[in-house]
């Protein structure tokens, strides 16, 4: 296993398009990011920003057609995942990269006991015998904090609560002896807030104990703050800002990032305020987006150049970059 700080996953210039009747939808349009060993990177953004498609592209789970990874590279532990044949890719999935989803009920098979579904990871990938796989499943259920795991192992998914089902999904994701990367796509979005807090705590705790690297996809800035070491803000298929979590919160540079933080009613600046500072307009249709900055139609700083071309990367610090023609304009101008 590599040392902390080395790069586990590196996505470069990823383009994932969907070819629809209404035109080409550039769901991911030239996005790059990297997950370092033992750290958590959050991809954050609203509907249609491309965060889930980016995750599915890494897993090579994009349905073709209509979807296609058009360009880019996905390096995982030194190998380009886009160059693997399907059998090699299947060995990476589940064994070296696992994924958990928003709605655990749709990802678990309703007709099999959870013990068998977790154990499958061991019988399939490790060639373990069923009895031993069951013992491993019980261990994992205990690891993710399910009470009475030796009884629960024989439950069907419908017998568990939403939070417990998500714990089972996490147990399955960690079934590999050395999980390199856990991709979590909105893992707590369907859960009640007190249960969400438990699951986030569990993920943090497991990361500390087994050193798994996490790529977390979320729309929720609160989840970012709880979990992320690093953040990439996506908007309409483009990465618009990337930074350490603290940097992003203290000095957001992109007008969209600022607007996103300002849209949160829990933002401390709103103590006693009567209105929120909202971003006008809505996300443009991704079909037929031009070459310019996709935020241009909602941005108060936008000028002609924004419509013409997407900006180059601008370094704010060694760990903080922004893609905006006018990011250095004073924050006061952006309201």
């Amino acid at each position, binding site marked *: 296993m590599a040392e902390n700080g080395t790069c586990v996953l590196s996505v470069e210039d990823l383009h994932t398009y969907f070819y629809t009747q209404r035109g080409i939808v550039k769901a991911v349009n030239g996005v790059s990011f990297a997950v370092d060993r033992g750290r958590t990177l959050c991809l954050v953004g609203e*509907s249609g920003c491309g965060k889930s498609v980016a995750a599915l592209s890494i897993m090579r789970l994009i349905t073709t057609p209509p979807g296609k990874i058009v360009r880019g590279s996905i390096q995982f532990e030194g190998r380009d995942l886009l160059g693997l044949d399907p059998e090699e890719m299947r060995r990476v999935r589940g064994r070296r990269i696992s994924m958990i989803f928003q709605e655990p009920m749709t990802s678990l098979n309703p007709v099999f006991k959870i013990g068998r579904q977790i154990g499958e990871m061991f019988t399939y990938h490790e060639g373990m015998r069923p009895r031993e796989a069951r013992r491993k499943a019980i261990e994992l259920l205990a690891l993710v904090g399910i009470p009475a795991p030796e009884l629960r192992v024989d439950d069907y998914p419908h017998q568990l*609560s939403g939070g417990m089902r998500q714990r089972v999904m996490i147990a399955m994701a960690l079934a590999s002896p050395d999980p390199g990367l856990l991709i979590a796509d909105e893992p707590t979005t369907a859960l009640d807030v007190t249960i969400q807090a438990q699951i986030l705590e569990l993920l943090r705790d497991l990361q500390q104990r087994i050193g798994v690297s996490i790529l977390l996809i979320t729309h929720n800035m609160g989840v970012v*703050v709880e979990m992320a070491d690093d953040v990439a803000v996506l908007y309409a298929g483009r990465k618009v800002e990337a930074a350490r979590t603290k940097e992003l919160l203290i000095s957001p540079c992109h007008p969209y990032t600022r607007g*996103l933080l300002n849209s949160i*009613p*829990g933002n401390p600046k709103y103590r006693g305020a009567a209105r929120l*500072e*909202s971003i006008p307009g809505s996300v443009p249709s991704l079909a037929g987006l031009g070459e310019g900055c996709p935020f241009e139609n909602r941005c108060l700083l936008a000028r002609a150049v924004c419509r013409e071309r997407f900006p180059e990367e601008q370094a704010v610090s060694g760990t903080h970059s922004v893609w905006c023609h006018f990011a250095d304009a004073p924050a006061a101008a952006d309201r």
Partner: protein
Amino acid sequence: MDTLLEVRQVAKHFDLKGGGVLKAVDGVSFDLARGQTLGVVGESGCGKSTLGKTLLRLEEPTAGSAVLDGIDLFSLGRTALKAARRRMQMIFQDPFSSLNPRRSAAAIIEQPLVIHAIGNQAERRQRVDALMAEVGLDLRYRNRYPHQFSGGQRQRIGIARALALNPELIICDEAVSALDVSIQAQIINLLLDLQQTHGHTYIFIAHDLSVVEFISDRILVMYLGRVVEDAPKAELVAKHLHPYTQALFEASPILDPDLRGMRCTVPGDLPSPIDPPRGCHFHPRCPRAMDPCREVYPQRKEVAPGHFTSCHLY
């Protein structure tokens, strides 16, 4: 205080098929002043949505009373209820399933006027145009169908429909929960602007404490069918007493990475509302549970002026 709505011991129980009773709402009381916003917050199964529907009699109440400006809503017959409904409307969570996909935006917004036979065709058209402008919908989109609008715009249609009859009381049931955060902020601002212009009284039902905290004057916290704590907003934010309210505040996201992992999470799952724990419903998850909590449901006590909680600790 100019009270618009007076709610006393409202209950809504559902008889279950296999026997047993689901006490979705179990003895909720509050007063709501005209022009104020009452936030109702809680997690799945706490009864907040059923409470809203019961007050409008979209669900028939099992017990209790709700008096809107002197009118006892729960004793009204059909005709009188229809008249009373002109004064109270609802905005729903899902702008997909709460709008008829076969009708244009204008027809959807006009419908309440048609049902209550208000104005002639020309007047109604004028009113629809005014409503669309007021909620920020482009008049060129009058004849578009719901699927041609974005989620935020659809919610604006739902709001315009609720406003059509000039209601005094509007119940917003998770009205912004399904929206992206940047759109959510727009809709929250719209609701606040409308309240300022028309003096609406809101009951704002949501699971997101930070949204409720922002929009409300008074907050009522529910857990498994009962109110565990209610207080004026500032009071509740400064001093949340019930361990469940404390858990909600702890679990609510804060934009400060220095506080990461510093917060206490309450253990355990939400129990089924069909067979809630005896005594205080929260006791199995409560870090401060004592013997009486396992036996007796605590009385509602006024711990400070206007600040009520049901907990044996106080």
